[in-house]
């Protein structure tokens, strides 16, 4: 099937199998390997991207469902010279170790900050419940999200 979508501001028209997943298109067709696959079953959150402004787990979105959508991945939110405040906060707060969950965690956290009022520690913990990290114990991730909240 033909899928037309915008990824990080660039338009793409791709011929993909009907059962192709959004994450497969991002990683394998567009070379955007910052989005990771950690569980294939929508439980770990390593694959979170933004679709039309909302956080989605791209391992459980069919490419066809993204037809016509604006997709933003970790590669599209900031650069080394101009980091997104959430990226900056993750670095400043040592909110990552192996880095594998980090792109999904950052994308989920941005969505959480944008869609929440009165975000406190417990709300951050509840809000990131869909993203697994095995390295940090979440302590510094929570600190980073609260720090970024004040800078976004």
């Amino acid at each position, binding site marked *: 099937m033909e899928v037309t979508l915008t990824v990080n501001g660039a338009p793409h028209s791709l011929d993909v199998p009907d059962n192709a997943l959004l994450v497969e298109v991002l990683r394998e067709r567009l070379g955007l*390997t910052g989005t990771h696959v950690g*569980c294939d079953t929508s439980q770990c959150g390593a694959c979170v991207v933004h679709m039309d402004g909302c956080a989605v787990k791209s391992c459980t979105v069919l490419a066809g469902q993204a037809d016509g959508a604006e997709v933003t991945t970790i590669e599209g939110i900031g650069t*080394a010279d101009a980091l997104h405040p959430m990226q900056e906060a993750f670095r400043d707060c040592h909110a990552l170790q*192996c880095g594998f969950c980090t792109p999904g965690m950052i994308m989920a956290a941005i969505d959480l900050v944008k869609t929440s009022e009165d975000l406190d520690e417990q709300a951050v913990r509840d809000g990131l419940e869909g993203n697994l990290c095995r390295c940090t114990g979440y302590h510094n991730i929570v600190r980073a999200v609260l720090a970024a909240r004040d800078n976004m």
Partner: protein
Amino acid sequence: MAENGTGIGAAVKRKEDMRFITGAGRYTDDIDQAGQACAVFLRSPHARATIGGIDTGAALQVPGVVAVYTGADLAADGIGDLPCGWLVKSKDGSDMIQPPHPPLAVERVNYVGEPYGLVIADSLQAARDGAEAVVADFDDLPAVVGVATADQADQLHESVPNNQCYDWELGDKVATDAAFANADHVASLDIVNNRLIPNAMEPRAAVGDYDAASGVYTLHTTSQNPHLERLVLAAFVQVAPESRLRVVSPDVGGGFGSKIFVYAEETAVIWAAGKLRRAVKWRAERSESFLADAHGRDHVTKAELALSSDGTFLGLRVKTIANMGAYLSTFASSVPTYLYGTLMAGQYKTPAIYVEVRAMFTNTAPVDAYRGAGRPEATYVVERLVETAARDLSMDLAEIRRRNFIQPEDFPYATPVALTYDTGDYEASLDKALRHIDYQGFGARRAASEANGNRRGIGFSSYIEACGLAPSQVALSLGAGVGLFESAEVRVNVTGSVTVITGSHSHGQGHETTFAQVVSDRLGIPLDDVEVVHGDTARSDYGLGTYGSRSIAVGGSALIRATDKIIAKGKKIVAHNFETTEDNIDFTDGIFAEHESNRSMAFAEVAFAAYVPANFPLDELEPGLSEKAFYDPGNFTYPAGTHICEVEIDGETGVPTIAAFVAVDDFGHVINPMIVEGQVHGGLCQGIGQALLEHGVYDDAGQLVTGSYMDYCMPRADDVPSFTVDTTVTPCTHNPLGVKGCGEAGAIGATAAVMNAVTDALGVKSLPMPATPETVWKALGSAG
């Protein structure tokens, strides 16, 4: 030690972070080779079965399928078994029994998920379709699942009577029995240390490539120790000689032990790449990680502590049955022995200790090192027992520990279980932890919880670990198959920047920053001028990788040795330039200066001079400025500390909540406190996960019932609190940085602290892990 700046002791932001936060990390699954094929493994659906036959005919007809290989194909090609690298001896002096472990099962399968073949195709979809079309004829047999009764069950391996791998002992049985005979009180516990599934967030993966022109194999894989991977694949599995086998371990998304081992999958992938003369790629799905990554823990233990009436420890007796799973994984045999029995003294002067461990085979996934590896199990035994004894004798939790702690003046202290602790100050950590938790205020907090219909408990864990693995001499004498030193190379480039090549590996620990801090500090050059390279057998001479909290203690020490050689060579160069002797040259803050003169050369000038060797006396002074060192430690390092957990239990639902968690650890000198705190946080979360959430469960038929994140309860952000983390410092006495290592402490200490707190809150002697709300709720009822 610098508190600011970028040197040793500074909380420098990590150099590696920029690529990870911008999506530019390069993990194995991000690597594609030209023309690569995709592999899918055929895995046993049975816990125990004989393989009658495998019909691959239909699979080979699936469009896109390139090849289907089975265990018989590997065996016919001379591919060897996956070896276990540590030979443990039984009480009677006999060697442990190591059953054959072919990479792909040939005649029989012994656990659900065991690979018996692989399908290789042009696309992953075609490989999956091909795997669906393979018809294997299994004749299933009754599974042996329970480890405690495995010796009574069907024999799994022809060479292993009673399914017993070894029956090991450590310590003085006679002295220990005598201590019990003379004791005023014996505290005893039956303990099950629950099976855990490591679950690094990056699933294992491998990309094998073969260059027919050169005959060189290149394997990119998710390994914590690429040189060991290469050694095993070359020497034992015999894929190719080391000189024609390159193993690259690029960015690795966490390991926690599970990526130390040499597995079937990368073995089959690199072999198949050679067969097909085509790159082959495999990435585990999470369900494969659950089934076929090596699991952790899984002990059944009876433990007793003999005490005098004043609470002095007299003797400790421990009897453990350890589950090896179906086969011996790479270091499985060492985990419940030399990494477990040797830690039974804990922080205490217990004079007599006797430990017996029987290792058994069952129809479950192999069990091997998982964060802490043996030491969390030992800490759990000792610290649960100590707290049980305190309750039995109505002693204060701090007091019973103080009474028995090894004191600062006792070091070096030889324990009754083969280790000699070099240094420590255990009361310092305990006291600091008591202040952080506000121990005095606990009674009031408990009363407040009870007034609200809830329960509150407090639990301590004063753990010790032996890490910085290891003195090779000791390890080899105890059965290790490899040395455990570490290598470092400091390559000064012509214009003065430095490339550091380490044999240890970073998969989240931040070595690119920490190691650069050490070199930058020693050489007096900017942190940005130091780049750290690791994880590629083509770039470093050799290395033993990262596990056992060894990287800074062993790898960092090698780095110091190499930088010392650089400084010595630099002095020679400067002395030659100044026409004096090197004794007249000092090196401070990046400047080589002549005594009692104003002549000096900056580090970069010396580097340049080294590579532009005007008039060098070549028989005394070679050009260039690049030095290597191999460091083999004189002893283990002994990080230790006290963790205190306070738990509140909902009186209605049984839900346990960690109200506060304090960890005070002595890691010796700390290179980067920010990174060290992060390591502790992560370890604590895994330790708490074991206590409250995680459990790898097989049913009676040997099916893994916790095979996904829906069934295996990983700690999530709302399951854990923010932690209070602090340190004390007694520098390690035998390595040049005075460091001890910090990677496992959190996971070693936390579990016992949590369970001590939960049982305290409930007023019960013991409770099985994990203490889920259901388990706790039932205990609430039974405890009245």
